[in-house]
């Protein structure tokens, strides 16, 4: 006869309600974990997308994500000619606002040279950019669909394809356009700045610039050697892919990550206290019954089993409900909620430990109760 289950079934409605409450709390915890993962993954997505080995950026900057970087577009040819470089591509990044279908869209515009590194890795729908002007490939989260047109700057672009999970660390969805088109965007987006430059007298004469040049190396080529060589040019600096990812995590998303991490810690503590409280209350309400059990001769094993089993059933059900709910709603979050099986596993471990520790409180009270209390009226 399993007393834990009999007792749960006796007060099933209340138990289910408690599980549901705990489940909602678990949903929030899981959402937080997912948001945390999503933030990191999204931030890295933009760095990982070009599948580069080396990033060549402006000297003295940690560009192009952590800091602004601007180098002459001609750098690409110089990098491409270096020994060990298989291919190189120039790339630009800028965030712009565009109105579309009555809404203002914040877009992260990535300019790359079709046929060279820097473009989207996988087209989810439609096709990639051709060589013609004013086409773009958009992230699905922009809400754009292939065939639509959208005005960026002075020009109207046609959406030819969709990609997924391309965005900057702020969560703005990306659109890919050709480098040539971004050049015209750069000059048309900011007339005030352009006028200032023109007033300084270097307006029309400026050579076109890009944010970075990315290079893919030949198999066996030495990344460290290449970055060292690039750094010898006074106006350039170079970062390996690993350094670039580290930099992005450390500088751009670090604070957001710590913020969410801290909040997650608080949430987990709240859950732990909640679980402890629920289990303790459940036990305290049964103290007289536990005294009765002791009186009729139940060993401690039976009593501990009753409490611990209920605690575990509560924890697991709460977690199960939480998991089911988060899987149901995770796609309606505005930003990516990324849950790995590993996260669920770790959370399960934490909840199990919390349940065991929490039942410790109840078990203590239960073991202390005097069987004689069952006799008094």
């Amino acid at each position, binding site marked *: *006869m399993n007393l834990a289950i009999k007792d749960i079934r006796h007060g099933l409605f209340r138990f289910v309600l408690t599980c549901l409450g705990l489940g909602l709390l678990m949903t929030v915890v899981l959402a937080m974990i997912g948001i945390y993962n999503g933030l990191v993954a999204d931030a890295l997505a933009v760095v990982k997308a070009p599948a580069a080995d080396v990033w060549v950026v402006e000297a003295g900057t940690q560009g192009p994500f952590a800091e602004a970087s601007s180098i002459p577009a001609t750098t690409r040819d110089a990098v491409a000619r270096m020994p060990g470089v298989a291919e190189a591509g120039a790339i630009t990044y800028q965030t712009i606002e565009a109105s579309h279908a009555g809404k203002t869209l914040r877009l992260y515009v990535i300019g790359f040279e079709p046929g060279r590194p820097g473009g989207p890795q996988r087209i989810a729908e439609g096709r990639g950019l051709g060589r013609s002007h004013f086409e773009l490939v958009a992230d699905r989260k922009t809400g754009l669909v292939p065939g639509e047109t959208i005005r960026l700057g002075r020009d109207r672009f046609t959406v030819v394809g969709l990609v997924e999970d391309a965005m900057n660390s702020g969560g703005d969805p990306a659109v890919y356009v050709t480098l040539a088109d971004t050049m015209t965007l750069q000059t048309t987006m900011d007339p005030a700045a352009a006028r200032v430059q023109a007033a300084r007298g270097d307006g029309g004469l400026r050579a076109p610039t890009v944010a970075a040049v990315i290079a893919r190396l030949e198999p066996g080529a030495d990344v460290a050697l290449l970055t060292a060589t690039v750094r010898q040019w006074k106006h350039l600096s170079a970062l390996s892919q690993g350094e670039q990812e580290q930099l992005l995590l450390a500088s751009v998303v670090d604070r957001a990550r710590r913020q969410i991490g801290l909040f997650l810690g608080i949430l987990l503590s709240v859950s732990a206290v909640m679980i402890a409280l629920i289990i303790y209350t459940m036990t305290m309400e049964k103290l007289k*019954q536990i005294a009765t059990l002791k009186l*009729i001769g*139940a*060993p401690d094993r039976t009593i501990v089993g009753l409490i611990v089993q209920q605690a575990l059933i509560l924890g697991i059900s709460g977690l199960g409900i939480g998991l089911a709910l988060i899987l149901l709603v995770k796609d309606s979050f505005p930003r990516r909620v990324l849950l790995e099986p590993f996260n669920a596993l770790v959370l399960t471990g934490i909840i199990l430990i919390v349940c065991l520790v929490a039942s410790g409180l109840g078990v203590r009270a239960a073991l202390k109760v005097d*069987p004689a209390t*069952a*006799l008094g009226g």
Partner: protein
Amino acid sequence: MVPGDILVDVRGVAKHYGEGETRVDALRSVDLRVHVGEVIALLGPSGSGKTTLLNVIGCILAPTAGRVELDGDAVFDGKWLRSDLRRLRLDKIGFIFQAHNLLPFLTAEENVSVVLDLAGWPSEKGRERARELLDYLEVGYRAKVKPALLSGGEAQRVAIARALANRPRIILADEPTAALDSGRAQLVMDLLRKLASEQKACIIAVTHDEKIFDRFDRLIHLRDGRLVDS
């Protein structure tokens, strides 16, 4: 009577609660011997120590001094002599307490069979015995019902069935008939008498109910923690 006949042997048992100003002497040197088949009533005014004596015999409460022997085994002599008091209770002692000490989350039948479960009976046999006992006590028709839905008398009979389930030889009851009308009270007492003689058990029951005094073999009076002759 032969010595093996004595189920409960209490000698010089004293129990006080608290110390100094607040000290209450609930029992002062009580001697009591109960034999197989005996049905004994424990009488006395409120606060005279009846429940305390019952708890000492039931190994729920350690006396301050004295010696307790149950069914030939010394269990207390200045200190507990056995570490498995709950097992002892499970095997030798049946408690009949207030009806509402039935476990609310178990059915009447389960409330009885849980004792057998704990005693290690196979669950099928335990259920069978529970049904038999409930039938015997004429509450078999309520076997699948939880205590909240039982009447006071039904609940009390289920509690009695639970006390008897593991065939204990010492049955302790604190006002077993308080919740019953006098007809039912007499019936329950007759039943306990029958069980005592059939199972070679003894019964010690606290009662205030004069209408059932004639159902007891002996009436024992407690006053201020001492047994007094009536």
